[in-house]
C-alpha cells in the first residue's frame, strides 16, 4: 500500500510538475474554450451540440490525447528525467509500480471527463425541454463513464507503447487519430478493435439526431455490455503485457526501456 501511495505521488508530480503544469491547465480549460467559441457563434446550445461535444470533441479528440499524453509519460518521463533508476532499485515489482503510477493519472482523467461533460451539459443540454440536472443525471454519469473507460484504455495502450517504442506519444496519437478512422468503414469485427467505436456504443444519445455523432453512433453495432468488456479487455491486455515486458527487460541508465 505504501508503494502504491508513493507511485500515486509520482503520478501527481508527473502531471503537475512545472514542465507540464501549463499544458495540464490548458487541457482542463479546453472544453471551456470550445464552449466559449460556441457561445460566440450561438447564444445557447442544443442537445445536438452536447452530443457532438461529448462524443467527438471530448471522446474522439481531447480524452484520447490527454490519456495518451499522460500514459506515455509514465515511463518516458522517468527515462528522460533519468530518474527511473530510483524506481528500478526498490523492493517492488517494477511493472506493477509503474502501473500504479499510471493508475494515479486516472482520477485526473475522471475529473477532466466530468468537467468536460458538465461544461457541455450546462451549455448545450440544459433546456426547458430536456429537464433539469436531476432528470439528466444518468446521462451525465453514463457519458463520463464512457469517456473515462475510453481514456483508461487509451492510457494503457500508451503505457504499452512506451515500453515497446521510442516515440509512444507519436504512435499513440497516430493510433487515436488515424487508425480510429478506419474501423467505422470496416466490417463489424474491426469495430470491436476500435476504442472510439466502443466509446460510442456506451454513449447515451440514442435519440434521432442529425449531427456527426449520430451518424457515427448509428454505425456502431456493439452492445453496451460488450463495449464495457471490450474496453476493459483492451486496457487489461495492454497493461499486463507492459508489466510483463517491464519485469523482463534490461535497463540501461540513459535509455533503459529501449536498450534491447
Amino acid at each position, binding site marked *: 500500500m*505504501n508503494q502504491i*501511495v508513493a507511485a500515486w505521488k509520482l503520478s501527481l508530480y508527473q502531471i503537475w*510538475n512545472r514542465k507540464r503544469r501549463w499544458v495540464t491547465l490548458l487541457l482542463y480549460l479546453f472544453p471551456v474554450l470550445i464552449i466559449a467559441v460556441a457561445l460566440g457563434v450561438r447564444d445557447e446550445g442544443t442537445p445536438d451540440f452536447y452530443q457532438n461535444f461529448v462524443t467527438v470533441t471530448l471522446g474522439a479528440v481531447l480524452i484520447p490525447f490527454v490519456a495518451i499524453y499522460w500514459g506515455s509519460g509514465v515511463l518516458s518521463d522517468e527515462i528522460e528525467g533519468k530518474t527511473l533508476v530510483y524506481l*528500478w*532499485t526498490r523492493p*517492488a515489482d*517494477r511493472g506493477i509500480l509503474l502501473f500504479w503510477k499510471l493508475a494515479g493519472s486516472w482520477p485526473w482523467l475522471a475529473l477532466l471527463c466530468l468537467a468536460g461533460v458538465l461544461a457541455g451539459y450546462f451549455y448545450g443540454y440544459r433546456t426547458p425541454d430536456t429537464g433539469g440536472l436531476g432528470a439528466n443525471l444518468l446521462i451525465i454519469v453514463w457519458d463520463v463513464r464512457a469517456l473515462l473507460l475510453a481514456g483508461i484504455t487509451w492510457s494503457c495502450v500508451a503505457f504499452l507503447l512506451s515500453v515497446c517504442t521510442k516515440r509512444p506519444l507519436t504512435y499513440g496519437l497516430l493510433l487515436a487519430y488515424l487508425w480510429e478512422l478506419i474501423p467505422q468503414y470496416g466490417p463489424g469485427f474491426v469495430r470491436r478493435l476500435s476504442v472510439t467505436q466502443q466509446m460510442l456504443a456506451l454513449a447515451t444519445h440514442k435519440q434521432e439526431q442529425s449531427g456527426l455523432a449520430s451518424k457515427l453512433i448509428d454505425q456502431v453495432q456493439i452492445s453496451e455490455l460488450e463495449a464495457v468488456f471490450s474496453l476493459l479487455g483492451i486496457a487489461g491486455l495492454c497493461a499486463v503485457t507492459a508489466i510483463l515486458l517491464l519485469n523482463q527487460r*534490461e535497463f540501461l541508465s540513459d535509455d533503459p526501456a529501449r536498450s534491447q
Partner: protein
Amino acid sequence: MSATAPATIAQMNEASKWYGDVIGLNQVSVLIQPGITGLLGPNGAGKSTFLKLLTGQLAPNRGMVRVLGRDPWADRGVYREMGYCPDSEQLYEEMTGLAFVRLIGRLAGYSARDAALRADVQLERVGMAQHAGRIIHGYSKGMRQRIRLAAALIHEPKLVVLDEPLNGLDPLGRIEMLKIFKDLAASGCSVVVSSHVLHEIENLTRHMIMLHRGRVLAEGEISEVRSLIESQPLTLRVESPQARAVGAAVVGLDSVTSIEFASGFASAAILNGRTAASAQSKSDFSAPPSAVIIRTRTPDAVLETLQHEAAENRLEIGGIEALDDNLDAVFRYLVEEE
C-alpha cells in the same frame, strides 16, 4: 548453484555481459567481502556494467551474480538489504530533498510516519538536515550527492553500492563524503564504491577490484597496486621561472628517465643526456621555459631534491603537479606488463 557464504557480501562467478557485439564485462569472477571495496577502472572499463549487474539492473549473459545470497536480477527482495546510489545527477527537480528521501522511503515500503523518521535520520547523517526543505533544483552537485546517499540509506541496507560518488565534489566535500563512507563501514554496512581516481579509493579502503576492458586486471590490496605504480615512470610538471635550473638539479638522479622543458609554445627534451627538439619551430626556443616535465621512477626522490633546493633558496618553484597520477597511467602500465 550454491548460496553465497554468509561472510561474502557479493559474488560474481564467470559473469559476462555484452551489448550486441560490445563486451561490457568478460568472465569476471570476484568475491566481495564485508567492509569497503573499491572498484577502480578508467572510463569504459566496465565499472558501470559491473555495478548494474551487482544491483540487478542487468542480467548476466553468462555466469552468476549473487548479492547477500540472492540473485539480484530475479529477486527484487534483495533491495530491502541493498542500497544503490547512481552516478546520475538527476533527481525529481521540483521536489524538496526531504520529500524525495521520504518518497524513496515510501517506495521501499515504509509508512508515511516511518519514512519521515528514517528520512530525518539519514539526512542528518549526510549533513543535509539544514537544507532538506529546499527544492532540489537549487542544489549543488555535492548536495545532490548527499541527498542520493540519504535515499540509498533510508532502509539501512547491509550493502550500499555507490557509483562514482565523488565525481564533481569539491575537496572539502570529498573529505566529508569519505568520512561518511568510513562511518558507514564502521557501523557494519558494507560499501562498494567505484571511482577512476586511485587516491580516492586509497583514502577509503585497502581492498580493491581493478577493471580494464571488461576484465578484472587486479584484485586485492591497494598496496600491491601501489607498488606496481611506484615501479613505473611517473610524470611530474614543475612550474618555475628557473625551469632549466630545476632540470639541471634532477637530471643527475638515476631514476629520472627524461626531462622536457615547456613554455607557451615550445618544449625541448633531454633524453639520456641527449637534447631533442619537440617544438614546432626552432625559433620558439628563444622564449625561456616556464616549466619542466620530469619522468621518473622515484617521484619521492625527485620531490625531495626539489624541496631541498627550494629550502636552500637555490630554486624558485611555483607548483608541482603529477600529470599522470591517475588510473589511466597505471592501467597502461599494467596492460603493458601483461
